[in-house]
C-alpha cells in the first residue's frame, strides 16, 4: 500500500466560505434586516396612534418623547443601569463558579448529587418573588440582597446543564480513558469538562437572562422602601410620580441590557464551539 492512495478527500465534509457584504455573511442579512423593518414599522404605527388619537403623554408617550426622555434623564438612568449591571454581573459570576463547582462535585460523587440535587430543585421551583421579601428582611445590605436573589435564579440552569454535560461524555471515550489508566483528575479535565462545554454555554445563555430578571424582580419586591437604585427602582419611582416617559425609557434600557447579554453569550458560544460542535457548524448539503 503506497502513500499515494490516501483517502484524503473521499467523503470529507466541505466547508463553504460565504460571500460577505459589509463584513456580514450574506445569508445573515435577512436575519438582521427583517426584524429591523418590523421594528421601524411598529415605531411608526405607535407614533401614529398617539398623534391621531391625541393621547396625552402621561398616558402613552410617543416613541420620540421616550427617546428624548432617555437622553434628558441619562444622568439619572445611567447610574441605575450601572448598578443593575453590577448586580447582574456579580450574581452571574457567583452562579457560574458555584454552579460549575457543584456540578463537578456531583459528577465526582453520586452521594453528593443524591444529597444536594433536590435542594437545588427546591431553590429553582420556588418563585423568586416569594423568597425575595424574606431575603430583604434578613440581609441588611440592599445590594447584597439583590445579588442573592439574582444568583438564586441564575444558578440552577448552570448547575443542571453542566451536570448533564459532565455525565454525557461518550461511553467509549470513557472506556478509552480507563484503558489508558487515566486518573480522575485527567478524566475530568481532558474528557468531562470539554464534553460539558456546549451544555454549560447553553446554561450560561439562559442564566444571563435570568440573572437580569432576578435582579429586577428583587428590586421590585424591595419597593421604594429599599435604598437600591437600579433600573427597576427607577421604574417604580417614575410610576409613583406618573412620569410615564421615564418608565418607558428605563424599560427600554432593561430590554436592551437583556438583548446585549443574549447576544454576547450567543457570540461566546459560537466562538468557543465553532471548531468542533455540530451546533456551530454550517454544512452544504
Amino acid at each position, binding site marked *: *500500500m503506497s502513500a499515494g492512495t490516501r483517502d484524503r478527500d473521499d467523503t470529507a465534509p466541505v*466547508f463553504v466560505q460565504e460571500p460577505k457584504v459589509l463584513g456580514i455573511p450574506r445569508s445573515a442579512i435577512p436575519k438582521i434586516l427583517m426584524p429591523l423593518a418590523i421594528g421601524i414599522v411598529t415605531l411608526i404605527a405607535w407614533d401614529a396612534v398617539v398623534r391621531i388619537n391625541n393621547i396625552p403623554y402621561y398616558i402613552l408617550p410617543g416613541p420620540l418623547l421616550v427617546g428624548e426622555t432617555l437622553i434628558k434623564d441619562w444622568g439619572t438612568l445611567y447610574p441605575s443601569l450601572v448598578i443593575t449591571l453590577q448586580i447582574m454581573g456579580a450574581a452571574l459570576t457567583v452562579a457560574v463558579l458555584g454552579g460549575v463547582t457543584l456540578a463537578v462535585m456531583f459528577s465526582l460523587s453520586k452521594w453528593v448529587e443524591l444529597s444536594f440535587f433536590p435542594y437545588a430543585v427546591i431553590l429553582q421551583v420556588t418563585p423568586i418573588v416569594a423568597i425575595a421579601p424574606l431575603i430583604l428582611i434578613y440581609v441588611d445590605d440592599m445590594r447584597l440582597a439583590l445579588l442573592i436573589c439574582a444568583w438564586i435564579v441564575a444558578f440552577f440552569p448552570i448547575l443542571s446543564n453542566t451536570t448533564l454535560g459532565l455525565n454525557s461524555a461518550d461511553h467509549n471515550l470513557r472506556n478509552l480513558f480507563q484503558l489508558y489508566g487515566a486518573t480522575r483528575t485527567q478524566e475530568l479535565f481532558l474528557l468531562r469538562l470539554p464534553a460539558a462545554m456546549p451544555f454549560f454555554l447553553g446554561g450560561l445563555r439562559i442564566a444571563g437572562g435570568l440573572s437580569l430578571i432576578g435582579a429586577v424582580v428583587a428590586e421590585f419586591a424591595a419597593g421604594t422602601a429599599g435604598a437600591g437604585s437600579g433600573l427597576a427602582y427607577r421604574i417604580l419611582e417614575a410610576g409613583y410620580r406618573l412620569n410615564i416617559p421615564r418608565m418607558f425609557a428605563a424599560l427600554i434600557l432593561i430590554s436592551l441590557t437583556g438583548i446585549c447579554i443574549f447576544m454576547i453569550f450567543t457570540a461566546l458560544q459560537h466562538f468557543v464551539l465553532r471548531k468542533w460542535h455540530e451546533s456551530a457548524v454550517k454544512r452544504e448539503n
Partner: protein
Amino acid sequence: MSALPVAAPRAALSPLVRLAAVNKVFSNGTVALKAMDLAVGDNEFLSLLGPSGCGKSTVLRLISGLGEVSSGSIDWPRAGTDATGEPQRDLSFVFQEPTLMPWATVLDNVVLPLRLAGVAKTERIERAREAIRLVHLDGFEGAYPRELSGGMKMRVSIARALVTRPKILLMDEPFAALDEITRFKLNNDLLELWQSQKWTVIFVTHSVFESVYLSNRIVVMAARPGRVFSELAIDAPYPRDESFRTSARYAELCRVTSESLRKAMAQ
C-alpha cells in the same frame, strides 16, 4: 495449503494471553460466554468471527480489562504486574466507532494515550506525529474530527492505538461502518502495519471475507451462549494484496469459512 479446522499450534506454546474456561454472565442473567478457551500467541492475526450476540466483543472487553470474568481466568504469562496487581497488558483498543474527542485536533487525539501516561511533551508530540505518518494522515495534524471522512477518522483512531507501541491490538469491528472501497484500503494498510510493527491483532468481525483476507487464524463463534465453535488456520502467505483477494485460493478459503459459520449459526 489447505484450510483445516485445526488450531494453530504456535499459540499454545507460549501465549501472550490465555483465556481458560471463561464464563461471563451479565447482571440481567444473559450468558454472554460459556467455557471459552483461547490462547493468543506472538504476531498472530486472529479474527473472532460470528453472528451478533455470540460474545465476540465481550471477549475483547474482558481481555482489555474493561469487564470482569464471572468465572475462569485470563492469564498474561509473560507480562509483569503493576502496583495494584493488575497485569501490564500493553494493549490498545480500536472501537467500532472512531471514538475521537471532537474538541481536539488529530494531533491532540493521537497524543492522548501518551499524555495520560505522563510522557514528556516533546517526546509525545514526536511520537504522535510518527503515528500519524504511519496511517498516511500527515498534513492533517491540525484538523478537527468533523473535518474528516469516516475512513480518515478511523485512521486517526488506529494512529492513537499504535502510538503507545502496544504488543496487542484489539479491534472491535473497526471497519463495519465504512464503505467497501475505504474498507479494502484500510484492510491493506492494517496488514502492512501489522507486518511492520510486529503486533498481535485480535480482530472482531462478522464478515467472512474480511476475516479470511486479514487473518492467519479464525475462531468461529456460536451464539446463545457465546462459545468457540471451530478454529481455522488460514495459511495463505503474506503479504496479501488485491491479487490474493481475487484468487481462487481466497474464494476457496471463504467458502470453507462460510460453511463453518453456517454450521455455527445452525446450532
